[in-house]
């Protein structure tokens, strides 16, 4: 319904923007802006889904876009923001193994490497593989690897969670590019939410506090406690 070249340009713009957000996640020190970057990344994915749904006329992709917006742009960032407030950490200053600059260099190398590698893999079946699948695979896998970079090069637990979420976005991006995979992705998002909740509770409140404080915090979130009166 729209101009093909316009859609193509839009898709490319989104891909590049996603990669930029990923690079941002690697280097930003302020936690709130990290969170916002993640929100932006998720939003971009939702946009991608919308674009594809219009191109292909697939309603499922639209659903995915809505689900992504609800979960990844609204709920999860809100939840993490709440936790951030409570543990009152604002900044993530230290880096493991890689400094921001070098990690961005590494990620560029990664993108090129993945591009070449996947190009090689797909070349034999190139005629049948849709170009969008190839690009999606490259960007998706690169995004996953960059998410891993975030996980191991940032020290604060919250940042690690964001890294993981960013990896997840990579898979989502890859999934969106393969147009017929909707059902699974939907469920996957639900599971990821569960994992995420578990992760963040254990992570953020558990790791830097004593057991008593931890129990206290768990009770505060009333996550695991069923009935208080059972306690001895």
């Amino acid at each position: 319904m729209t101009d093909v070249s316009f859609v193509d340009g839009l898709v490319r713009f989104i891909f590049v923007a996603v990669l930029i957000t990923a690079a941002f996640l690697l280097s930003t020190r302020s936690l709130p802006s990290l969170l916002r970057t993640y929100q932006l990344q998720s939003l971009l994915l939702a946009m991608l889904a919308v674009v594809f749904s219009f191109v292909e006329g697939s309603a499922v992709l639209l659903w995915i876009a809505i689900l992504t917006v609800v979960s990844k742009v609204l709920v999860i960032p809100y939840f993490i923001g709440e936790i951030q407030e409570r543990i009152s950490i604002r900044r993530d200053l230290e880096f493991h193994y890689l400094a921001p600059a070098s990690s961005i260099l590494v990620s560029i190398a990664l993108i090129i490497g993945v591009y070449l590698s996947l190009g090689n893999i797909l070349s034999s079946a190139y005629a049948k593989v849709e170009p969008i699948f190839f690009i999606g695979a490259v960007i998706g896998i690169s995004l996953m690897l960059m998410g891993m970079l975030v996980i191991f090069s940032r020290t604060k637990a919250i940042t690690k969670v964001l890294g993981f979420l960013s990896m997840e976005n990579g898979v989502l991006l890859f999934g969106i590019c393969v147009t017929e995979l909707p059902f699974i992705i939907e469920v996957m998002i639900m599971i990821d939410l569960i994992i995420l909740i578990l992760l963040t509770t254990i992570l953020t409140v558990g790791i830097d506090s004593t057991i008593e404080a931890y129990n206290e915090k768990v009770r505060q979130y009333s996550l695991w406690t069923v009935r208080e009166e059972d306690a001895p």
Partner: protein
Amino acid sequence: MIGVILYLLFAGLFALLLGTVLPLLIRREDKPVRTVSLIATALGSAFLAVAALPVLFSATTVSATLWHLLPGIDFTVVLDRLSSLFLLILGVVGLADAIYSFGYVEHGGHPMRRNLLVSLMNLFLLSMGMVVLAGNMVQFLVFWEMMAVSSLFLVLYDFESEGIGRAGLFYAVMTQLSTVFLFIGFILLYGETGTFALVPASPLASPGALAAFLCLFLGFSVKAGVIPFHKWLPYAHPASPSNISALMSGVMLKVAVYGLVRAVLDIFALDFTSGAVILLFGITSAILGIIYAYKETDIKGLLAYSSIENIGIIFSGIGLAVIFSDLGMPELSTLSLLAALFHSFNHALFKSLLFMTAGSVVAATHTRNMEEMGGLVHRMPFTAGLFCTGAIAIAAFPPLNGFVGELMLFESLFFGLQVVDPLTKVLLIFALSLFALTGALAAACFVKAFGITFLAHPRSDRAVHAEEACRSMLIGPAILAFLCIATGIGSFQIFSALGYDLPLPDMLVVGMLIVVTLGAVVLVVRATASRETRVTETWGCGLLSQNGRMEYTGTGYSEPVVTIFSSIYRTEKKIDRTWLDPDRAIVAGTRAGISLIKFFEEYLYLPVARGTLAVSSLVQIFHAGTLDTYILYIFVSIVILVLGVGWFI
């Protein structure tokens, strides 16, 4: 006939199984449980021995399937002439050991643990029997491992005592090493033959067959305690209860020999080089084994090293058999092989005898240190007599069986010297002279073992209060002692009955001559000499009284040999003097010390162990990371995988 043999075999195996299971099921602490189990051991061993005899003499093959395990893999009993010999060894030693154990197991330890000892002893015998009877590799390995496990537990019987844990660990590792080699060997062999049955490997000279043979050889060598894989033996044998030491040394080492002989005879067609390798390993073990035994003061340690020596002799016999058959001298080859086999049998008899009597001594004195014994010949006269018989047999004096085995080996070497090939000749002369040295050192060594342990004054209070062992602990070894004499004297007749015409002196005649002469000498001396005797204190250069501390010690006894072979012992002499004055004229005191470097431990075992531990600690560091590190590992692996896949596709 075959049916009877099979029934006997089944009965024997079943009795041993019963003896294993019974003490485990009946959880009672009293003696009858153990007695019943030991009766099962004795009966089982006796059945097996009786089943083996007709097969040995008639050279038939008896086989049956016991248990259908997997498609194509059965547990079988295959009793041919070779296995019957080893089954006979097992039966005879097992019977004697069971009788010995009636008394022995009641020494020390919690009753439940004694039950376990008896049970595991049965299992040990059972698994060794099944190894010997194995018709395929899988069964061989299954029972080989069961043998290893049960013996490991037996070594660890007294696990709370100091040093036992170390011995057990050493044994566990070395026995696993043996299994590793056997696994590789058998699996490679399987690759060659395509079947799990023990059939000749074809093609014979392929590298696969050669590798398989080498691995099997190493595996059996480790288990047999051939130098340089011997180190577990002097740890494990002293650590285990003496009835078990007797079995380990008497039977288990022979099972390894059985494996090697089976491989040499039935599976591989070996050439001169392999024979020379076996021979060299054998000689090295023989000479170094006895040299190390010589300096031991732990009586069971001495016996353990002596086992290494004897295994060396057996291996040399096998090696010679291979060499001679490659050189086209079938008679000499047979002679050497028979020497090895006969010596296996003999060694089983007298080494078990020695371990049992040594065990009685240890049980009576509560020490294994010979320097704390002495004078036991008065307190334990029968034990002393039995030990002395064993010592004469192992020192290879006619007309006992030990001599005949060594004589056969010497003869094959003597005759072998006729060959022209200079390399072979050098090898044979080398072997011959080292055997001579070994034999003579063995004699000297057992003078020490018997003399220091049993003769003269008691060297400590422990020896003063020793008491004669109970009846069963005398009857068991006595059976073996009798057999040592009988097989020695009857050796010529035995070989004739087996169908071998060997150039051996008729020991029956020699024995009779000795008896007649002895009788004549006694008569003549009685008739002519004065019969007056007087008992008085030993002359001590005017000392008022002499006690155990003034006697010649075991260490002192071995000193000349230790000095002569100091380069082998790697002795380190260290003399520290202190002076009273600054000019160093007046000596205030001197300390002299001789220490023996444990060569193999220092230069072979410990470096390997340290190396492994170093790698292990590296791996440990690998696991001591935080989450970040772990994710980094994964990141790197994934990147390698993703890029690698693209690259190599």
